[in-house]
């Protein structure tokens, strides 16, 4: 039995946990404001909010694409569709801003935008237009050209700015950002007292952001083994110099983590290149690893941090290996059927550590890379140590560049070293031509992104023209 609150209604359903939340709200509950645009998380028309009760009895709301979310993941949550944001008659601030700025034409994408922006109002994200725009980074509109939407977003930010405390649901209710019933949700969720549902399925599903793109029908049909609420896979711990991230943690969890943002000052700049806010709210790090895409952004990121992963089996036996030893060949990796990745472990950067992430795709945001790359190394006395270079999209696996990394170690940082390293890099990669680009392009891009690491990290020391004529 899956129990949750859908808008203002308590749901108890015996529907299959693997069916999508989208199908449930549209066809079982007849809430047709949530639209189907693509069923692969790439358009945002099906955006809904998921509210999770936290220990202090407040609710954290996040936007997700309901097309990729198994119904079972709604268990114990507050799910908000567009209908659940409506006031009885008046428009909410987000709705009114979109209407008044001519930001809705055919209207098909509009509910998704409204829900995302309502999510922003409910979130604890710092109030600025960049964060507000990030909240709709997963929403595609084919009619407006977005300028009118930007104006609406500005208006929403202004109105939010005049609200004293967004943390209080009642303030948001009083200012017509959300309807009245939200105030009772924390108590109602607490009363729900849901037990974890026994998971009997064969296929492990975490955020679902890739599995539901690949094989939704088979997940709907067969039982799924949902691990999103598995606490053993949660948590971000810092023990000495080591950071341990539970494999079930999402990209947004990392985005929001204060200390990690201190250790990686450009973390959000990098993560903004990873999909959209809706997807970041769902996609787990472990899921990205086992998806084993040669172009997985987070995989490349953590490869360059020389991460270890710990793997646990059903008997709770654990083993640890380097992430760069995990991948064997295309979509093949060192994990048995009864095993799960439990944690990602890596050394936190010291003051000598340099880290950079680069990604180029046809569209800068919410796209899969043509090539992505990350690098980390420490630089003391102008000498490189602990170099780790990873690059995606140029091999059958997310590629850790063993030779290039080794070559960099112990050497002085200068233009010639970088040029020479690129020669080694070029011999370590073997891109193929596909819809993300020709092999020639990927080879050139690999070189450019490798150069870009150094230009980004040492803007005073290197410029593009040092590397290319």
């Amino acid at each position: 039995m899956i129990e949750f609150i859908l808008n203002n209604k308590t749901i108890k359903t015996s529907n299959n946990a693997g069916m999508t939340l989208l199908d449930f709200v549209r066809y079982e509950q007849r809430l047709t404001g949530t639209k189907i645009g693509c069923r692969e998380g790439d358009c945002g028309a099906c955006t809904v909010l998921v509210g999770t009760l936290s220990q202090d009895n407040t609710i954290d709301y996040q936007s997700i694409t309901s097309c990729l979310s198994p119904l079972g993941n709604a268990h114990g949550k507050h799910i908000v569709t567009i209908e659940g944001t409506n006031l009885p008659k008046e428009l909410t601030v987000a709705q009114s801003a979109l209407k008044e700025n001519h930001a809705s034409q055919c209207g098909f994408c509009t509910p998704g935008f409204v829900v995302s922006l309502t999510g922003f109002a409910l979130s604890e994200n710092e109030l600025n237009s960049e964060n507000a725009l990030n909240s709709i980074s997963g929403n595609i509109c084919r009619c407006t050209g977005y300028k009118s939407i930007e104006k609406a977003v500005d208006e929403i930010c202004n109105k939010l700015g005049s609200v004293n405390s967004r943390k209080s649901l009642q303030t948001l209710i009083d200012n017509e950002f959300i309807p009245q019933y939200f105030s009772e949700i924390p108590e109602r969720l607490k009363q729900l007292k849901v037990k974890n549902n026994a998971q009997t399925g064969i296929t492990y599903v975490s955020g679902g952001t890739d599995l539901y793109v690949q094989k939704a029908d088979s997940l709907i049909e067969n039982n799924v083994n949902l691990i999103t609420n598995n606490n053993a896979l949660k948590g971000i711990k810092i023990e000495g110099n080591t950071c341990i991230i539970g494999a079930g943690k999402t990209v947004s969890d990392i985005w929001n983590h204060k200390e990690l943002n201190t250790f990686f000052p450009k973390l959000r700049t990098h993560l903004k290149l990873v999909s959209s806010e809706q997807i970041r709210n769902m996609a787990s790090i472990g899921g990205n690893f086992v998806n084993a895409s040669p172009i997985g952004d987070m995989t490349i990121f953590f490869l360059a941090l020389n991460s270890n992963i710990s793997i646990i089996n059903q008997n709770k036996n654990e083993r640890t290996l380097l992430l760069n030893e995990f991948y064997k060949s295309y979509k093949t990796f060192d994990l048995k059927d009864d095993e799960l990745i439990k944690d990602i472990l890596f050394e936190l950067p010291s003051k000598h550590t340099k880290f950079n992430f680069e990604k180029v795709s046809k569209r800068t945001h919410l796209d899969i890379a043509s090539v992505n790359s990350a690098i980390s190394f420490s630089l003391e006395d102008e000498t490189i140590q602990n170099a780790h270079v990873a690059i995606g999209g140029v091999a059958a696996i997310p590629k850790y560049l063993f030779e290039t990394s080794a070559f960099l170690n112990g050497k002085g940082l200068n233009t010639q070293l970088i040029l020479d390293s690129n020669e080694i890099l070029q011999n370590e990669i073997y891109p193929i031509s596909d819809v993300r680009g020709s092999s020639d392009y990927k080879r050139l891009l690999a070189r450019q992104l490798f150069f870009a690491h150094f230009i980004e990290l040492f803007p005073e020391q290197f410029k593009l023209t040092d590397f290319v004529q």
Partner: protein
Amino acid sequence: MKKNKVDIDIKQSIKNIDAYTHVRGESIYVDDVNVREGTLFSVVFDSPKAHGKIKSIDYSKAEKLQGVERIFTYKDILGENQIGGILPDEPLFAENEVHFWGQPIALIVAESEFIARQARRLITIEIEELAVITTCKEAKEKDNFINAPRSFNLGNTEKAFGDCDYIFEGETFSNGQEHLYLETQGAYTEPLENGNIKITTSTQGPTQVQKTVAKVLGLAMHKIEVDVTRLGGGFGGKEDQATPWAVMAALATFHLNQSVKLILNRHDDLRMTGKRHPYESTYKIGLSKDLKILAYEAEFLQNSGAACDLSPAIAERTLFHATNSYFVKNVKTTVLSCKTNLPPNTAFRGFGGPQGMFVIESAIAKAANEIGVSASEIQEVNLLKENDEFSYGQTATQVEAGNSWYSAKSSFNFDSLKQDVKDFNNSTSAFKKGIALMPITFGISFTNTPMNHARALVHIYQDGSVGISTAAVEMGQGVNTKMLQVAAQVFSIDNSKVKIETTNTTRVANTSPSAASSTADLNGKAVLKACNALLERLKDVASKELNTNKKQIKIKDEIVYMNNEQTNLTWTELITITMLKRIALTENAHYVTPIIQFDKTKEKGHPFAYHVYGTAIITTTVDCTRGTYSFDSIKIVHDYGKSMSKGIDLGQVEGALAQGIGWMTMEEIAYGKDGKLLSNALSTYKVPDLFSIAKTIDVVPLETEGNDMAILKSKAVGEPPLMYGIGAYFAIQNAIKAFNPNYNFKFHAPMTPEKVLMSLYEK
């Protein structure tokens, strides 16, 4: 006009009348209709090969699957297995041969879509493959054409080239474009009594659907009712290609006497439907020393796909717009609609016009680069002037090409923008800027003259509220809002008193599709005519009631005025009196565009009611390390005439611009040599998102008188602004050239980051 004033005008202008339900998720699209009990769901089984003979198909396993009701094929068609609009060359279901990957072969009807999808996986098909053609060049070599070539000619190019100081030749390619209407194709069909069928669907052409369903089912048109509330985007993709899905669902309803729903999922939609036509073109341009274009020749090879669809009409518009905003004395342009094994390509905002304009802009860019001037110098001296002749014989009048060009240059201080770009490029090595101007001239009317008509049915109900039916289909462009404005303005009643009804073939019949940017003009004029007739009738009644002359009567803000003085007679009372007097409160008006004509035997005439003009200045920054780009600003002076709905019209400009830039930059359709669509999902086909839009977009209205052929002098705005996006290509190219002097100009759109990076480092 001052920017602040423009912004205030826009903020205050009428909002889309659907906005309230849109933002609340309460607007109804096809898939949201409350279906009848027992409704069946369906999925299309399509060809897994691009060309071949069907040797065998085994449906047995699929048919046996629990929950499958029936599988329909061409054998179930009692009328004609034919859905071609212009030419009868496209079957609804393939019979013995398949001609494109994704061609429909059967419709699986089941208790749920999920079951239908499972059943589809159980169908096996054996196809004897035949040679696959995916490009125009191959088609031309094999003489594979849809119809005879068309040519528009003016003067004598051969002779004129003799007088030219410069002559340049080259080739260009512009790729297709996926419409990506957010709402996929779909239909819901219900059986009515006596074998009649009601179809609720997402189409720009309700009559086309009605006609085709009747033909395929072998029924009279009056047995088929088509109803359209709104579309979740169309962009031309639902002009002709919304039809087959409605026909299939209707066929199933006809046989099963049950309601049937068919909604394409995104992958099916991408694979099975046609797109903007890719064009492979060659040009020859000749200029005098003072940069006058003396002669221009172009051969356009249009990749029409496997069937005619609307290709000949689209090809024709390519010729109409082959010289864009320029007057060229000697023109020779030819278009060939090439038959290939791609899905039949179809209408897409601009309708062949953009493809034609890209070629002359390429020719100008090439000439400018070779001569060593900037393209804008060539553009400027050749701009169309009053009384110039288009290659199709129409004389240009009320020309705003120069006006928009010079206003854009002065209002946005083009010279200083240009200098900024130069300074930036001189001081920066890892980033380069590029700037380009893009003028547009776009003809308004269906180029097929007989299609330029519309009707409106206006009811005034006895309580004074008004209901209006037209042929206009609301797809986000705001046409319903404009129809409402016309009626509210004529009657001088509050907007809330007017309701725009669904577009329904039983209320307004024999309609032209909502297309060609003309929907508001044609239908608006019909509404205007009907409302005016009713108003006259009401004034008659009022004058008798007030014992005065009709000329003294005026209705303002729902009050009857006599000699400009308020009376006690209100709108509502006047309606009651009229009703009691047994005078009709309903009017049906028919409008046809005057003046226009075109003689296809001579390829000369006056096909357009008027033209829309404008000029865009596009500035881009290219990241020369990564090969990516962003747009700093797009500054536009656009000829709206007297815009009746400023916010809606600005939305059309900005939306079309985004699509035009998408077409020119990131939207890349890819087919394999085997004819399989590779950009077959939203993960591989990218349209502009929030972050890829220019940082600033300024659109300043050109102050003009408007045109009487436009509804309330408010000019058509749907398509023309798309072509501003063409400038994006040339802006990026200019930035590349600033980084890499060895770069050899290429005209191969879209300009993806891949092409940019390869060009930046081309030797």
